[in-house]
């Protein structure tokens, strides 16, 4: 193994590879509840060529490789289950090109959402991308690989839907371009009009290759951004409220929040309706559309818009939302995790009920922040529980609550978002059980993996049928 270490040093330079206890400890964990497993080496490549050399070395030596962005999935997706090489991509952080008229950016595989946001504000203030609420160090590529969501998800779908091209180092070391960039200098499409091969890499958690460059669609950034807050205490009305709001086709983002503390929040559902505009008139019109859409609830006294005071607005409008991260300190313990099924919106009332039940049963603080996806085709519902990292019993209870919530969500027709390795097994078992789904799907997935990664070196343990 010392040969591997020396070989890695030759590839990336001695400053950018470590086999020391401290790096192995840190990179063997994430902030969630999955058990740790340490890598043997942590490596930080700078170029696609270096990634290729590392992958070839790993194939030669049969050493696993786990590519990592910021490691913020909370579900242990980049905990290297079988050790080997942890590929920290964050030195590959260049923004290579912005095509202003075609509205896309090409960036390297470790570029953070923070860097992209800041770059666009400075150089292209009329363009924006879909900023997720994960902390700013989350990388654009990793977020796309887990089918992340962001501020434009209500309008444009999953962040992975906004990908416009890929450069991938395949598990065998070859570089491959996916989408229009395979035949053209332009990165405007990840598939059409060609066969869309991007699906071989998005959603696979790095088990089918290392994405070294990514094209991401950009969208108009309007001059004004605002938020309205609709409050109801009837969970059963939420799906119809969302249907009415999405019918207007007016809103940037729609998020439904629920939490029991402070006490005034308990039993209420806060529907945050975000909107953008280029003029006060446009903004007022959109606000009026929201009022008109939901007036019926005001009349029936089932809900109403709550005034968002100027001191509340910055927190609501922040991108990313620091409040999402602050949830980790509710128990003064540095931890939270959520099981986030993607589900039809109709499931909202039963999911909220289950969220509260499990919190009660396991004596946990909970929160939920459900984001509407793609005009209401689905939503990401988060079963979020906080825990104290210094309280092993609370960590166990949180894990049980999450596991049971995930199982419930699957039973009710949801599909778990960024599932941990145990949840992946649950999903794959369900694929086998549910005869209305082609029983060959699992076999097909396994065949694809086997074809792309014959030595099984890429993030092993993930999407792996037992």
């Amino acid at each position, binding site marked *: 193994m010392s040969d591997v270490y020396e070989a890695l040093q030759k590839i990336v330079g001695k400053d950018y590879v470590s086999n020391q206890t401290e790096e192995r400890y840190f990179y063997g964990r994430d*902030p969630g509840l999955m058990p740790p497993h340490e890598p043997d080496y942590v490596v930080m490549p700078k170029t696609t060529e270096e990634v290729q050399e590392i992958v070839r070395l790993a194939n030669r030596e049969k050493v696993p490789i786990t590519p990592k962005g910021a490691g913020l999935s909370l579900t242990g997706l980049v905990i290297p289950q079988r050790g080997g090489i942890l590929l920290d991509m964050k030195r590959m952080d260049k923004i290579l090109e912005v095509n202003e008229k075609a509205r896309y950016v090409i960036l390297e595989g470790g570029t953070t959402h923070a860097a992209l946001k800041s770059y666009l504000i400075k150089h292209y203030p009329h363009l924006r991308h879909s900023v997720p609420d994960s902390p700013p160090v989350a990388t654009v590529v990793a977020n796309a690989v887990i089918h992340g969501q962001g501020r434009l998800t209500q309008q444009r779908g999953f962040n992975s839907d906004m990908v416009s091209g890929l450069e991938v180092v395949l598990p065998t070391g070859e570089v491959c371009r996916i989408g229009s960039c395979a035949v053209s200098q332009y990165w405007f499409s990840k598939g059409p009009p060609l066969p869309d091969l991007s699906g071989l890499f998005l959603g696979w958690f790095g088990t089918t290759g290392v994405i070294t460059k990514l094209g991401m669609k950009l969208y108009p950034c309007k001059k004004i951004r605002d938020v309205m807050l609709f409050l109801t205490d009837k969970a059963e009305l939420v799906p119809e409220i969302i249907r009415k709001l999405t019918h207007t086709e007016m809103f940037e983002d729609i998020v439904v929040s629920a939490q029991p503390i402070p006490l005034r929040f308990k039993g209420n559902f806060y529907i945050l309706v975000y909107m953008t505009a280029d003029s006060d008139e446009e903004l007022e019109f959109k606000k009026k559309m929201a009022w008109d859409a939901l007036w019926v609830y005001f009349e029936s006294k089932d809900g109403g818009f709550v005034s968002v005071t100027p001191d509340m607005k910055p927190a609501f409008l922040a991108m990313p939302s620091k409040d999402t991260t602050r949830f980790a300190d509710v128990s003064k313990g540095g931890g939270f995790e959520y099981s986030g099924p993607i589900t039809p919106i109709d499931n909202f009332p039963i999911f909220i009920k289950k969220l509260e039940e499990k919190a009660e049963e396991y004596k946990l603080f909970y929160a939920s922040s459900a984001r509407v996806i793609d005009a209401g085709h689905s939503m990401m519902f988060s079963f979020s529980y906080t825990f104290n990292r210094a309280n092993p019993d609370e960590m166990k209870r949180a894990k049980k609550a999450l596991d049971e919530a995930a199982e419930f969500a699957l039973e009710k027709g949801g599909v778990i978002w960024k599932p941990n390795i145990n949840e992946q097994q649950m999903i794959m078992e369900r694929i086998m059980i549910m005869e209305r789904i082609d029983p060959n799907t699992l076999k097909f997935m396994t065949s694809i993996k086997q074809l792309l990664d014959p030595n099984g070196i890429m993030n092993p343990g993930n999407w792996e049928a037992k």
Partner: protein
Amino acid sequence: MQQKNYASQIHRCFRCGYCKFPTDYSSFNCPSYRRFRFDSYSTGGRLWLIYAWLKGEIAWSEHLAEILYACTTCKNCTEQCPMKFAPDIVDWIVGARSDMVEKGRIPPRVSRFFEAVYGYGNPLKLLRSDRGAWANGTKIYAPGDEYLLYVGCLGSYDENAQKMARSLVHVLETAGVSFGILGNDEECCGNEIYLLGEMGLFQHLAEKNSQKFKELGVRKIVTLSPHAYNTMKNNYPAFGGSFELYHYTQLLNDLIEKNQIKLPQVRVEVKVTYHDPCFLGRYNNIYDEPRQILQSIPGIKLVEMERNRRDAFCCGGGSGNFITDLLAGSADSPARIRAREAYETGADTLAVACPSCLTMLTDAVKAEDLDDKLAVKDISQILKELLSAK
């Protein structure tokens, strides 16, 4: 002091990584993370590793200690962390260092720093009897003087910082300020000793200095270094030392406003950028006075670096790193990055207000081969040149 409670709080870090950035997320603003790029060198990495060490999940190692001591305690993390415990982060790091010191498990470079201060009264290991040699006849403080000018270890011994001290003396004398220095009787202020976690030695220095100042009847202290300003203002009161504290830029700005320093009306036509020292800015909220001095000079055009004020990027010298140099040896060393950032503004002068920053950035400008394009000058040096040109 929160540092005493760190062991019961440190697990609260979620390692979200906000601490790595400035407010606008434009780059990485944690000096040690920017230098090494392993997450273990970020604040979150450091806190998780300390917690692992406390729990016995990892053993002490020199590498662990170096990760801990590579933190410059610049407080960028404190500014950016979204959690309620944000103000305590540096105290937690100091607390962990203090435990390592008590167990005798610290990096050799830090150990040598302490030994030098124990033996010589300064971290540069230079003779106590030479401490006042820089002063060249500057008046020794006597009861009745309005200010004690506290020069500090770098101002007393480091060649660049000595020039800074002499310039300040010249400006104060020209303005007719009543002040004196301690010369060979001056002791280390202990700011770095505190941050490096040697609490026994720090207490000794704080008590000794406070006692001496009291015996001399000192009421107002003006410091050359923001580091001394910080510890005397914020740590000394707990050890019986309560004095009116001024950083020299505060005093000079006041003198200019009161017209006690009469600036010549000759336009100097210089483009200057200003580097905020962490112990003046983030620690003590002093951002305006140094800029006001520069803007009061006819012809000077002040241009800001992208990262300024609360978002200023540390030169890498804090927490004794101007001596221990744990962040050196790379084009990604913070001082070299900062020198490039200053050069990118188009400025021909990089103004500083701290002897540590002066030393770090002067060396960095040379390492970047920019020394004929970008002059690094302390604000008192800029003023002295102006007043001497009259």
